[in-house]
């Protein structure tokens, strides 16, 4: 049983008065613990695919099943609940809250879900990304690589089944990028979370179990590494 299933998914929207077909008839199954890289040119639909997978958006047609939950059948509150329990997001520009320390940023998904005692768990995951000593630092006091590792810790803190990473190394140097990819691979392998990563980097994509190539909103190729 796939953790994430996209069945004939299309996503169309209007931009400046003209219709944009971001995704067209995409079907994809991603298994629990699988590390999948989505590659393709800018504008090919990678981010749209991730947003649909992460229950941030509804498809225009087709179905998105996340852990057997059809996102189309959920309202805003239902989608929020689904994200809280099952999805972790990682962004290209880290998107840490500048007013919170590293550990507070990591705690945030747990707090938003209503948990109160989450410091231990946050520290534990911070240790996992090897940044325990940076717990009290504010984002602007961290390097880019460190910020992205904190962002990964934040995405993992609530033990999601699906981790979505949108160009996670697009803003990092090679060394930091390698470290982040290692971390994502470990996440899938050791924590059993499914990782769906959009990337431009073919080198990074090679580290994934499966590479999905998108072209003009359609799947052009699915290749196992």
């Amino acid at each position, binding site marked *: 049983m796939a953790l994430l299933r996209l069945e004939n998914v299309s996503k169309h929207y209007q931009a400046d008065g003209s219709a944009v077909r971001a995704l067209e008839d995409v079907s994809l199954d991603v298994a629990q613990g699988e590390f999948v890289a989505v590659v393709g040119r800018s504008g090919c639909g990678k981010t749209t695919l991730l947003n649909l997978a992460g229950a941030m958006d509804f498809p225009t047609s087709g179905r998105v099943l996340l852990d057997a939950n059809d996102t189309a059948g959920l309202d805003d509150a239902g989608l929020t609940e689904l994200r809280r329990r099952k999805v972790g997001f990682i962004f290209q520009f880290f998107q840490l809250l500048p007013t919170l320390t590293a550990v507070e940023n990591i705690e945030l998904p747990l707090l938003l879900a209503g948990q109160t005692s989450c410091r231990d768990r946050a520290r534990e995951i911070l240790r996992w990304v090897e940044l325990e000593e940076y717990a009290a630092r504010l984002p*602007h006091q961290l390097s880019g690589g460190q910020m992205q590792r904190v962002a990964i810790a934040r995405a993992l803190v609530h033990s999601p089944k699906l981790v979505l990473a949108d160009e996670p190394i697009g803003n990092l140097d090679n060394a930091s990028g390698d470290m982040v990819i290692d971390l994502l691979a470990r996440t899938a392998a050791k924590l059993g979370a499914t990782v769906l990563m959009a990337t431009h980097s073919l080198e990074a994509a090679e580290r994934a179990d499966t590479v999905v190539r998108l072209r003009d909103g359609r799947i052009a190729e699915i290749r196992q590494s």
Partner: protein
Amino acid sequence: MMASLVVFYRLMVRPLRREPARNLLTIVAVGLGVAVVVAIHLAGEAATGSFRSSLETLAGDADLEISAIGGLDEGLLADLVSLPYPFQFAPRIEDSAVVHASGQTVPLVGVDLIGDTSLEQLFGQESPDIDVLTGEDSVWVGTRLAKQAGETLALRLNGTLHRFTVRGVFGGQGIKGLSRETLVLMDIGAAQRLLRRGRRLDRIDVRLPRQGPQRDWRAVLRATLPAGVMLKPSGSRTRENRKMLSAFQTNLRVLSYISLVVGAFLIYYTISVSVVRRQTEIGIVRALGATRRGALAAFLAEGALFGLLGAAAGLALGRLMAGWAVDMMAATVNALYVSSNPGEITVTLGTVIVALSAGVGVSVIAAVGPAREAARIPPTEAMARGRREYKARLRVSRNLLYAAALAVAAFGVSLAGPIDGKPVMGYFAALLLIGSSALAAPAAVTGAVKLLTRPVQRIFGVAGLLASRGLKGSLSRTSVLVATLSIAVAMVTSIAVMVGSFRETVALWLENRLQADFYLRPAGRPSIDKHPTMDPLIADAIEALDDVAAVDRFRSYEITYNGLPATLGAGESGVISRLGSLRFLDGPPREETLAMLARGDNVVVSEPFANKHALSVGDSLELPLAGRMVSFRVVGVYYDYSNERGFVITDRATLLKYLPDPAPTNLAVYLTAASDPDTARRAIEAATANRPLFMATNQSLRREALKVFDRTFAITYALEAVAVLVAILGMAGALSALVIDRRRELSILRFLGASAQQIRRLILCESGLLGLLANVLGVFVGTLLSLILVFVINKQSFGWTIQFHWPAATVIAALGLVYITAILAGIYPASVAAKLNPIEVIHEE
């Protein structure tokens, strides 16, 4: 130039359209601030414009006026007329009458209808017979009395009812300026008889010779006039009234500027947001060739644009608000200074200039700080917000130090005396204190966040944590917001404390001062500068009653001292000493002071009079009485809160020595200990039957006085309500800006699992925290401001000693209201935040 305008339009004006609601809020807030200034300016002009009395209008193009306290002997007119120069003299009697049917008090003027050629136009083609002109039942009236020629008009003159026949109405062709008056005109001889003036005149208007050899006409006249008779330029009364009112007007003007100051903080905030949000754009434009000066000018111009639009809106709204302001100001002026009817409200070029300088001037000044920040941005640099805010946090301690320095300076400045009778340094101290509180705001926010984060998180969960951190995280913005709202709160607090203290002081004073059981005066609306008299026999009749222990006969005269209007009064110091109550500030004990008052030419003066003219016990003051300058020694300064003009009080016997008119203006009746007030009242009513008198108990007078007090301060409350409204509107706009500025963070929260409800709660939590902080800081600063108001500004402007009193219930109720509205101001931004589309926002970023 054209190219600069195009760039300005594209980069500065066009982006404003992206947030119409928020920009509209800023413009409305500035517009309200300008409107208040315009309203007070217009209302002030209208109020002062109305002081020109009917008598002065009648004086036409007269150059000088001759007058004396208690009136002039008409023999003086004969002496003047016999001078070998072509002067023109016009004798006048001025008093007031009460229209029997409506109770309206109207000016009554006696003029020489036969000899005064300037009045011929009153009668049109045909002059009436001499018997009609000089008849005791003949009057001519203004159109506002709504009477026709031939109708009967019943008037009460000094407590006696008279019926007159209206012989004519001043219409459009009447004497210029009189057509809209309620004036009643009659022959001077008839007026003398009916008003029991004997051979006395109130005034003689003088028109100097226009042709022939010119001389020092003042000196010629002066040589003829006995000592104690005053020779002043025509219209002096108007000038004196204006001078007297200048402190009152200045204080209201200053009060009206507070809304503008609050508006200035909002402009500062709006431009700051604009600078921060366009940081990258500024960098790029700088890299493309824009100069630092260009960046500075662009943001100053943006401020000016907001100011211009606000000024335009404020001018229109201010004209509207001026109508209400005039009514409220007139109530105060009539209660405390001089009787007047509000004049016309006229928008002039001066008004437009006031609006523009208020709106544009203040906006540009407010924009200087952020515009300089914009100019300092180097090409292509885009400093991360977190880093910028981190720098702002580093400046907290330094700003706190500056705040402390300003507070100390405010204290030092507040100790200085008045300048030209105005508490200039008091205002400056208040301004320094406001500056100090603005500089202390970042420290207050930081400290509060440290203190409140845990409890707020406990109560509101993660929304509370994020809200309190958000306050600290956006310190450069939130501290401006806290400063803005806290200034409005400080104003509410300081005014509430000042008015509350004043009210409490007046209430205590009334309790102590009004010791007589009954007070009587001629019927009709009381007027501060008119002193209608009653038949002296009335007092004798009341005094003869069994229930009555004593009657204090009080007589008032209108005087001018050192170019300012005041009241000269005389009471029976023996009665006051035995039964009354008069509290003195300093000098010998009360009994001794009153004993001295009864002997020789001694006076006691009210506190406002003493302060205004720098008099204290032992000093002398000279008054022109009975044809000579009489020197009086000040033996006491007493507390008085009844008006701001001031009183000079002597013993009745002393005054009668110089002005032998025994008719009193007021009576204070003291009952015997054994008498029943109801029985006594009936007895007094029987003794004064058929006399149109107004009788009040001490309780009803106290109630009435406090009612007048509350009415007096209505405009103050209205002004502070507007300032709070400006702050709340601004806060709604500023919170929206904060939401837009932080939309990335809010969207990330949605990605991380925050519900729309949580986002809404987060913004409401922030507005609640901002409101709380502003309230706490505002109450603290407001209490300090109230000390300046009570002990410096009020004392130097009006001369009253006010006992400090903190009206807890009023302050708490007002603050509760401010707090609730502050939270309500968060509703719109909260809904904007909840509706953000996180995917779009992250994509944009």
